[in-house]
């Protein structure tokens, strides 16, 4: 190929490259400007003050507006961390304002928790907590209650070392697995147990009491919650056992009152019904403290040996090449 043709092709190719780069540069400027305009009304999220509320599908199901609130959200407005005693106080004094006593007393008679089973499915650091709850329903009584709509609310108080990924829950929400789901508390996905706090998962499931009342087996609620493990504190044995406590179960129903509809919340007690297959324990591998000294020493010796190898090779070969260059010149 003659040199003039080669240089023509090279120049054309360079023009193409310049053109591509100009297009990319213009796009970059455009997008930066667009993003700048979008950011002019941003909402800042302070560290420690964020909750990962993945929202719910209330709008699409014609659910009353007073149902939108997650019942445990206000717990973290008042308390810094999740403690069982504080949460019991919260349930007793803040979740039950007292305006639905009559309905709640009646609903208590209607629903009886008969069976609950829980198990961890899977291996390793990523598992599913499978929970199943069955309630007996007295169908003749339920028809008399002025209930408009009901939902089951399951509160999982996760122990130290276990967390739920709010974005994973959002994905499940979008697929319609849950009606609503939210994670409150420590939602940092990366910290080990020693530097993290507990968190809480609130899941909402649609319940039609009238439909279930026609089934002889009663009402059954099944939940499959994906959970993940944090690195646990160091243990001599090399394993850490984390126990998952029983969830708190609620039924929230909207009732038709004379002046306006209202929601009533009922805590479903287990009435002494034991877990069908015992407590759920997650066995997690942990670091062994006895390794600490040896690991530190060997780590730094390895780093030093690698460093020395590279340094000596670089110095030797660069000076060898330099001498060779000087001889050639």
């Amino acid at each position, binding site marked *: 190929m003659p040199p003039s043709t080669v240089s023509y092709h090279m120049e054309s190719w360079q023009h193409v490259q310049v053109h591509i780069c100009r297009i990319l540069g213009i796009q970059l400027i455009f997008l930066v400007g667009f993003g700048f305009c979008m950011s002019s009304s941003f909402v800042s999220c302070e560290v420690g003050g964020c909750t990962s509320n993945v929202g719910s599908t209330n709008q699409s199901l014609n659910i009353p507006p007073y149902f939108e609130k997650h019942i445990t959200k206000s717990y973290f407005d008042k308390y810094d961390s999740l403690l069982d005693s504080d949460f019991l106080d919260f349930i007793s004094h803040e979740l039950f304002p007292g305006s639905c006593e009559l309905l709640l007393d009646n609903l208590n008679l209607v629903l009886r928790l008969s069976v609950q089973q829980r198990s961890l499915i899977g291996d390793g650091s990523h598992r599913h907590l499978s929970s199943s709850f069955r309630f007996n329903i007295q169908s003749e009584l339920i028809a008399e209650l002025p209930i408009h709509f009901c939902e089951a609310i399951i509160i999982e108080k996760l122990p130290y070392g276990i967390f739920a990924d709010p*974005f994973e829950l959002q994905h499940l929400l979008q697929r319609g697995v849950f009606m609503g789901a939210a994670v409150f508390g420590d939602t940092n996905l990366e910290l*080990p147990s020693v530097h993290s706090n507990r968190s809480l998962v609130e899941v909402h499931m649609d319940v039609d009491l009238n439909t279930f009342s026609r089934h002889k087996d009663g009402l059954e609620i099944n939940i499959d919650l994906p959970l993940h493990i944090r690195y646990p504190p160091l243990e001599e044995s090399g394993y850490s056992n984390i126990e998952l406590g029983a969830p708190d179960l609620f039924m929230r129903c909207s009732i038709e009152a004379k002046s306006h509809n209202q929601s009533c919340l009922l805590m479903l007690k287990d009435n002494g019904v034991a877990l069908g297959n015992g407590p759920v324990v997650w066995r997690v591998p942990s*670091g062994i403290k006895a390794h600490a000294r040896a*690991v530190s020493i060997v780590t730094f010796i390895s780093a030093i040996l690698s460093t020395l190898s590279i340094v000596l090779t670089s110095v030797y070969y660069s000076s060898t090449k330099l001498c060779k260059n000087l001889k050639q*010149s």
Partner: protein
Amino acid sequence: MDVRSLLLFSALLRVLLIIYGEWQDAHMEVRYTDVDYLVFSDAASLVASGKSPYQRSTYRYSPLLAFLLVPNSIIHPSWGKFLFSASDLLVGLFIHTILELRKVPENLCTCALMVWLFNPFTFSIGTRGNCEPIVCAMILWIIICLMNGKVLQAAFWYGLVVHFRIYPIIYSIPIILVLDPHCFLYGLKPALSSWVGQGNSTQSIPSTAVPESCGIWIALTSMFTRARIMFGLISGAVFFAFTGLFFYLYRWEFLHEALLYHLTRTDPRHNFSIYFYHIYLHYEHEFSVVERLISFLPQFLVQLVLIVCFAQDLPFCFFAQTVAFVAFNKVITAQYFVWFFCLLPLILPWSNMKLKWTGLSCILLWMGTQTHWLMWGYLLEFKGKNVFLELWIASILFLAANTFVLIKIIRYHTYSSLFQRLEFSSSDNDLKEGKKSN
């Protein structure tokens, strides 16, 4: 196969992989798309709704990335993957440009290009939604700008890329050193060293010039040249301008997540780094300043020596520095490998290493130790076995493999300065009349 056909075929491959990725995400339990892509996309949708991208937890990047992915919410969720794959192809184009400028024969250019375009790691990383190809493209463009004598452009892109991803800060000193007044005059296109065949150095040393061993000394004494000052000022200004802009928009959250987090990051969770188990075993107490300095010392020493020895051979210096930086980092994830994969084709034409058997042994050793680590990592994370010790030993072996490969590459590399030393004639007018570049 010519370059255009290669690029077209590579583009088609990437489009097919993106389409396949969408299918796999919708139909299979294991997703093709990288988890990071979901983070970018969520952050971009927050920006599209006028919110801060840092409301998305684990979003630890410049807001620029979220801005670039805003079309994910407007056009199609795969927009970002197409953008990253296009950057990936741009890297290939830039590799070819750089080698062509240095007069590498076409067949070697094509082979080097194929090392990037058909590397399974490379074509999967962009199609899975990882943003590293954008960084690689910017770094190669900076090299091209320097080769064409365009200091201001190089400085602009350098400031931008350091804002985008902090690690290119390690290239600052070699760039400053390569702007040697004996090789590079501001406003003039520098003379590039050409490829003349493996085993032969292209460094020509005029008899009147100072021997190369004093190059560093001259660099120190004549540090403040116009090219160096302009490069430092412009790149610094661009970096601080973008940082200042986003600090104005997003305050401390931006500073902490996009910058400070990366500077202070110590992750106790398992990764390829030899330090992970040491960090986990000592995580309950804070590391002292002395401990932090000791762990930083190997990295610092290696970077310093590589710069001093190889700065003038800029592409090789970048490559060696990046391999060492990744190997000695406190956290190593697989996406970091693409940082040096994009530089590997730039040095291959100057390597005397034969594929049989030195080259093959390097490849097999590097991949073998990685696979070995992944096996223990799988047992720990997905089977719940306590294999922390075995996994840590696997990371030590991986460091050994990285060291071995780097040593071999240095051993077989034909040193070649990027720029030729300028011939100073009795009249300086010869230089002033030279081709202007800016």
